């Protein structure tokens, strides 16, 4: 029997499955966070050059990855929702946007916490920092456009146009910022190429990344379920599911 993927594109079919999966993802995320923090804070050795301060990277690096990946994912879902008129995809894009913005913000904050002891300054106009900041602006634009539009279908489509324009612009912005930086100040501050990373460090990083993924899935699904409940007001299955 072949699996019918379109079955779960309907909010009525998706909601019962998703709401059952949320606790599993949330529990797994919590367990992995605890393991990852233990490995990162207690088992991983002290860094030769950066001292203890480098440990903030165990949350910084996964957060930065998540911020970028979730933007691309958001644009894909928004595009699918627009092209195929699939409202569940569009709701997914809106749910992803806030988590993505949160991770981008978190990576900026933890990045400056790491930069103060290591580089001696809270903020550097370095290519990566600047492009992450611009990514946060793109998320803010998406969220504020969607919240300014009252009609949910128009909000979905307008958001899709903006997300797709944004995702095409992301590489252009990234390279322009990189070239701008090299033109202006050159390599005055550079992260010294670290020797091969110690095994516990790598393990902590990967566990934290997995924890961030699971956390994102749990939170996005929760937000998606709330969006479904809100939007499918007055539809038969929803009244049944809520009173059951």
């Amino acid at each position, binding site marked *: 029997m072949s699996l019918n993927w379109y079955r779960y594109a309907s909010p009525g079919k998706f909601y019962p499955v998703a709401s059952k999966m949320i606790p599993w993802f949330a529990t797994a995320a919590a367990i992995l966070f605890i393991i990852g923090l233990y490995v990162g804070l207690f088992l991983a050795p002290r860094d030769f050059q950066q001292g203890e301060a480098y440990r903030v990277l165990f949350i910084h690096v996964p957060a930065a990855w998540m911020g970028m990946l979730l933007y691309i994912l958001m644009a894909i879902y928004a595009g699918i929702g627009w092209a195929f008129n699939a409202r569940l995809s569009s709701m997914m894009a809106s749910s992803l946007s806030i988590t993505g913005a949160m991770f981008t913000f978190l990576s900026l904050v933890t990045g400056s916490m790491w930069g103060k002891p290591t580089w001696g300054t809270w903020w550097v106009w370095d290519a990566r920092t600047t492009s992450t900041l*611009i990514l946060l*602006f*793109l998320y*803010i*634009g998406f969220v*504020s*456009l969607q919240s*300014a*539009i009252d009609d949910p279908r*128009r909000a979905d*489509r*307008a958001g899709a*146009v*903006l997300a*797709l*324009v*944004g995702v*095409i*612009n992301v590489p*252009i*912005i990234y390279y*322009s*910022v990189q*070239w*701008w930086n090299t*033109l202006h100040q050159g390599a005055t501050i550079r992260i010294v190429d670290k020797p091969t990373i110690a095994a516990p460090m790598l393990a902590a990083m990967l566990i934290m990344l997995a924890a961030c993924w699971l956390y994102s899935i749990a939170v996005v699904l929760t937000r998606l379920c709330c969006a479904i409940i809100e939007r499918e007001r007055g539809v038969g299955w929803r009244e049944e599911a809520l009173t059951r």
Partner: protein
Amino acid sequence: MSTPSQFAMFRWLVRRDLTLAWRRRADALSTLFFFVIVVSLFPLSIGPDTQLLRSIASGLVWVAALLASMLSLGRLFAGDYVDGTLEQMLMTPQPLYLIVLGKAFAQWLVSEVPLILITPLVGTQFGWTRSALLLLVVSLVLGIPVFSLIGSIGAALTLGLRGGGVLLSLLVLPLYIPALIFGAGAAEASLASGSPEANLYLLGAVLVLTVVFAPWATSAALRISLE
């Protein structure tokens, strides 16, 4: 009845927008004065140190031009949207792509050409050499259409929304960044007697990409906003 050719439509649209702008001259002039005032505010806030001003002037002029071109974006579709003309335009057999391009072109002639023309005058306030001024003008000629074309996407998306003006700036300002970097970089390189060509080429590439793709995105956004 035969439908007019696509080029006739484009010409008609530009002429109509120019006529409308001519009847409301104050709108275009206010953008221009805004630009001049913003540029003149910087020496007042930073101090009259000529050396410092000369070194940052290209960035100042570029940011002021960016803000000024954003001011006029709200008017791009708003008037036609309110009186229903835009809806009629969407129903014509001519491609919406050309309509958007025509409106953006008219907007460029009305609000941005004057701004580029007055730049040499503004630049002399900062004691620039002639070649540096020429480069600044060239970079603005290439860069400002990028602003109005990308801005038209945002203007179409925010059509008829409350708080449209501030929202519009949130949407489009991050997308302006590549043009700003390359444009201000070209003008800056001329001051530092570096080579501005690389930045100008990149700015030209961004312009070509925008001319091809932005009207398409704007058309899609207009259809979404007007359905």
